[in-house]
């Protein structure tokens, strides 16, 4: 393996990379397995998308990367891609014998981090580790960012750190903050070299927090909403405007996506029960154990995370189809496997690191809705969002409706959560557009790693966006995943050791590479490794795009070129502070680990 890392152990990397290959063609499966084994990767094959999802959900950290064919009989490869991105936040590579630009584009839009043409060559497979590595790097960056933000927040409330004696005030915050940022940067390296730094909390959009967000949005009025206004209303001291901006963006995307989906799908108002088997989401939805499933303000929140069900939460008749499009409830996903069958009864297991599951649940959660209960009594429980329902969707026609769900309270069917149906009903206008958008954002595309190349539509972004952060980085989990590869010379070294070393290596590399990572540059990986083949989609897409079209805050998405659709006023210029180098165009929304645990 070519390795450009300075670390002495780098030559063993990426041996042991755990790959899941999904392809309905047994011949290809056999060939790919052999090829990957030759690369010293650890391979698991699967000929059914459904089985693959089960495997992935069963243990979120079991794999580092997924390679999937686009055309499969039981599930569209793109859907699988979305699910994986959303639920597990793993890099996914698509394959097909069809190399038509439109298909490739679709892959990118759905969050694929690469698209290989069949017949696939060994050399293409050798380099897939870069996608995993890239993701890890992004996660570190996000953590950093959050730390900085957290510090800033602390500063705001603390105020005694202002050198010049400024008192904290709205007006003065800007300069002190800047100063603080500078100070923080000095500490970055230190933090980075401290492996525990990777575990610092990011902004976890817990149910509770999200509910506040949605409430604020609804209060302001979706059309007039803006991060600052939302932030003010939310009154969460440690939250930054950037956090909100980012979250808002995702929310919007989610909603618009839901909207699109809803147009062709289920009505929002009824309870749409899809029989999804909620599988355990090994809590990987970006939210680690640390996610607290806060009790939703049951009275108002209407999110229900119906892990496996795509139920359109009928929070109210206000939900417009458009809005529902991609509502994804950010719900932490819990482990347990739940079958979201008509009665979703998922065994709720809180798992550590449940991710926020986007579950789309439509309709009122009636008795038939069983939601996997997550640790907490509120409806977020569930486990697995979106993807799961696909499995059980009653509506055959689109079994895998990714994100049809609306935010809703899903009353846990079982004993567990107490999200009551009435909670649903009384929920405030989550049904309103904001909800959907958000859902949309979160919902599908999970593909954190993927570069969103070209799709410049909001819709696309939403897809991507969704993927990106929802589950993108779970500090702990990801680190653990990172360790999955045999960073250590011995492929199967003791885990902890491996983790540690990986962390160190990762961090070290990160540190050393940092200076060379330049936002405008291509992937730093390519600069370090001659052999690295950039993601096929990289093309010339690495750019920082401004998502929000409005002035003020401009959400800079790396790699996202959101030129399109959404009326700019919707975005209020979300500003993303990405001060870390975008490494190539791979992870558009990844960095905003807002929803990560």
């Amino acid at each position, binding site marked *: 393996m070519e390795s450009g890392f300075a670390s002495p152990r780098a030559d063993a990397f990426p041996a042991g990379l755990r790959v899941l290959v999904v392809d309905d063609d047994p011949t290809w499966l056999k060939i790919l397995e052999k090829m990957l084994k030759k690369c010293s990767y650890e391979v698991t094959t699967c000929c059914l998308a459904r089985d693959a999802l089960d495997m992935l959900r069963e243990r979120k950290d079991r794999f580092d990367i997924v390679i999937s064919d686009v055309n499969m009989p039981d599930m569209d490869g793109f859907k699988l891609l979305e699910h994986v991105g959303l639920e597990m936040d793993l890099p996914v590579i698509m394959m097909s014998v069809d190399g038509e630009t439109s298909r490739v584009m679709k892959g990118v839009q759905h969050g694929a981090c690469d698209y290989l043409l069949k*017949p696939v060559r060994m050399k293409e497979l050798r380099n897939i580790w870069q996608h995993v590595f890239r993701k890890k790097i992004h996660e570190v960056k996000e953590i950093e960012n959050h730390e900085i933000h957290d510090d800033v927040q602390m500063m705001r409330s603390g105020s005694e750190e202002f050198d010049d004696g400024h008192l904290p005030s709205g007006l003065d915050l800007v300069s002190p903050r800047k100063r603080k940022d500078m100070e923080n940067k000095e500490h970055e390296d230190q933090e980075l070299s401290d492996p525990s730094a990777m575990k610092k909390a990011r902004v976890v959009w817990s149910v509770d927090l999200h509910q506040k967000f949605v409430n604020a949005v609804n209060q302001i009025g979706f059309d007039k909403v803006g991060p600052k206004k939302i932030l003010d209303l939310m009154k969460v001291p440690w939250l930054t405007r950037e956090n909100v901006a980012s979250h808002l963006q995702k929310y919007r995307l989610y909603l618009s996506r839901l909207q699109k989906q809803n147009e062709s799908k289920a009505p929002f108002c009824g309870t749409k029960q899809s029989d999804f088997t909620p599988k355990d989401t090994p809590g990987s939805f970006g939210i680690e154990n640390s996610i607290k499933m806060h009790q939703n303000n049951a009275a108002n929140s209407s999110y229900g995370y119906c892990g496996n069900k795509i139920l359109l939460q009928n929070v109210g008749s206000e939900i417009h189809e458009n809005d529902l499009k991609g509502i994804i409830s950010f719900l932490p996903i819990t482990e347990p496997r739940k079958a979201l069958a008509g009665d979703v009864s998922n065994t709720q297991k809180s798992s550590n690191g449940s991710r926020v599951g986007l579950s789309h649940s439509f309709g009122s959660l009636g008795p038939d809705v069983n939601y996997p209960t997550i640790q907490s009594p509120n409806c977020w429980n569930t486990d697995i969002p979106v993807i799961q329902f696909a499995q059980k969707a009653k509506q055959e026609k689109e079994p895998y409706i990714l994100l049809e769900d609306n935010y809703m309270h899903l009353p846990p069917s079982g004993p567990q959560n107490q999200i009551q149906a009435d909670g649903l009903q009384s929920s405030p206008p989550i049904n309103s557009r904001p909800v959907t958008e958000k859902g949309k954002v979160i919902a599908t595309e999970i593909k954190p790693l993927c570069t969103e190349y070209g799709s410049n539509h909001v819709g696309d972004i939403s897809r991507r966006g969704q993927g990106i952060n929802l589950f993108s980085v779970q500090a702990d989990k990801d680190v653990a995943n990172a360790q999955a590869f045999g960073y250590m010379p011995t492929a199967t070294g003791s885990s902890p050791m491996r983790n540690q070393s990986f962390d160190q290596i990762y961090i070290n590399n990160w540190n050393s590479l940092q200076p060379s990572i330049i936002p405008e540059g291509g992937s730093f990986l390519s600069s370090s490794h001659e052999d690295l083949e950039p993601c096929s989609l990289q093309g010339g897409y690495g750019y920082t795009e401004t998502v929000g079209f409005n002035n003020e805050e401009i959400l800079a998405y790396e790699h996202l070129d959101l030129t399109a659709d959404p009326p700019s006023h919707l975005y209020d210029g979300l500003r993303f502070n990405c001060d870390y180098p975008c490494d190539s165009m791979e992870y558009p929304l990844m960095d905003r680990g807002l929803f990560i645990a």
Partner: protein
Amino acid sequence: MDLKRQAAYMRKSLFDQGYLDEQFIQLEDLQDDVNPNFVEEVVTLFYKDSARLILNIEQAMERSPLDFNKLDTYMHQFKGSSSSIGARKVKSEATQFREFCKAGNAEGCMKTFQQLKREYTTLKKKLETYFQVVRQAGPAETACRPK
């Protein structure tokens, strides 16, 4: 002729006559001590699995009118599969077939499908013979590749 040489000769002509492409060589490269008969196994698997794809297409071809979308989907699958062993001529017919599907050309589809089946069967026989010789020639014999 010495078996090894015979095997090498057969192999070369398969390439020269355009029956196989580079992918076949990729398969050969994957063959190792762990999987000493890898290529043959893959080819066998291909023929076994693709038989049902062919059957699907045949059945679909008997419908009237032809469902071009479905046919295209089947053929897409088949094409992907045939690309796995480097079945060049077969793959080319599959591409042609798909073109006819997109154009809604029933006759073109039918003719191409017949052609495809011929190529498919021809290749199968040739490869069967080839592998027989290879096996008889003894292990580690696949002669140095033309490349």
